[in-house]
């Protein structure tokens, strides 16, 4: 499965949603399962609202982490989203 394009608008897939929040981790519910998402994964996924493009998400993450290595963020966030798409938790 390829990573998202700059113009992709990643979002939680149909039938997947956030459960309740606590300080450090959030849970995504999907058919027959749930996955705890924390740290940078949570930051990435919380930006995936189906409105923002992948390019915007990378930009905002860059600002969030005050990192200069945009290519690294793009690659890691892209891989993470591609993995979740394979599990049918994310769509783009």
């Amino acid at each position, binding site marked *: *499965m390829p990573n998202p394009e700059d113009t992709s608008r990643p979002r939680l*897939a*149909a*039938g*997947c*949603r956030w*459960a*309740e929040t606590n300080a450090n981790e959030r*849970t995504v*519910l*999907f*058919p*027959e399962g*749930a996955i705890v998402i924390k740290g940078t994964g949570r930051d990435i996924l919380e930006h995936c609202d189906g409105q923002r493009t992948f390019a915007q998400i990378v930009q905002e993450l860059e600002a969030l982490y005050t990192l200069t290595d945009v290519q690294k963020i793009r690659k890691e966030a892209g891989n993470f989203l591609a993995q979740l*798409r*394979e*599990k*049918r938790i994310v769509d783009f």
Partner: protein
Amino acid sequence: MSFVPLALIAELTHRCPLHCVYCSNPVELQKSASELSTEEWNRVFQEAAALGSLHVHLTGGEPLARADLTRLIAGARAAGLYTNLITSGIGLSEKRLQELLGAGLEHIQLSFQHSREDAADAVAGTRSHALKVELARLIRKQPVAFTVNMVVHRQNLDYLEEILAFAEQLQPDRLEIANVQYYGWALPNRDFLLPTRGQVEKSIGMIAEAQERLRGKMRIDYVVPDFYARYPKACMGGWARRLILIDPAGRALPCHAASVIPGIEFEHVQRHSLEWIWRESAAFNKFRGEDWMAEPCRSCERRSQDFGGCRCQAFLLAGAANATDPVCSLSPFHAVVEKALQGSNRVSDNMHGRSPSSQTQPWSYRLNPR
């Protein structure tokens, strides 16, 4: 020890328009007059969520037979539960589908009996296949997670390739192919349903190939028949460790079949809180931990992985609910399973691969509660 009922299985009714010969409902069905009310179910959903449940599986019987299903879905969502509807589809129209989705339904699991209409309808004991195909198309147009469930057995495993292609064109997110398990109505029909070793081996290869080919497009989960396994399944993740089932009359059980085990008092949600039933009731504690285990489980290094297998199957096949599940190759009762397998593999040449209607011996169809 602190166990959490991660999923609540809500058997809303035992009424069902289908009569599948392998129905997992108990043979002793709950009558429609004893069904829990909307308010009682909605309280159960709140209590389950408070105990840590994440998912509710709305099932039956046929859950669409409950006229208040929309309100039950809304109640489950209000409690924070992820809502899954396990259905034959009979009773669903486009309008009703919209209502259920509007109430917050998130996942629909639609069952099929075969890729071929005549064979499917023969298993279900009623005409239903064509309608299900139509419903699958309606469901797929909606933003809802969609699983196709296909039960497989001796009579349809030879059609597995065709079944996979059939399921694929329905475009579900997930395909669950589950071999029949021998509880409820399936047990008396076992001789018709138990696949041959050749069928099972071939199916595993075909499923693996399809999983690889459809990766990222459609997830395929395959439930293999435990009669052919060397070790038993960790049934329900262990007795009362991860799941709680409420039957139509409000009786709390650790699984679909446990009511067959004699001498256990399963409590009702009308009389006790779900928390008390889960944590304190004798029934739910009966096979937790390891103290109840007999040999060879008691000293087996696999005991913390499979918990000795299924308590219901131990009772049904060995006559003792605390025995090692007889499907285990280490069980002193394993001969019972061997014997069933011998029978299945001996008659294989002239029986499998035909629709049940072409057979001389009758099936026992699931009946309906009064």
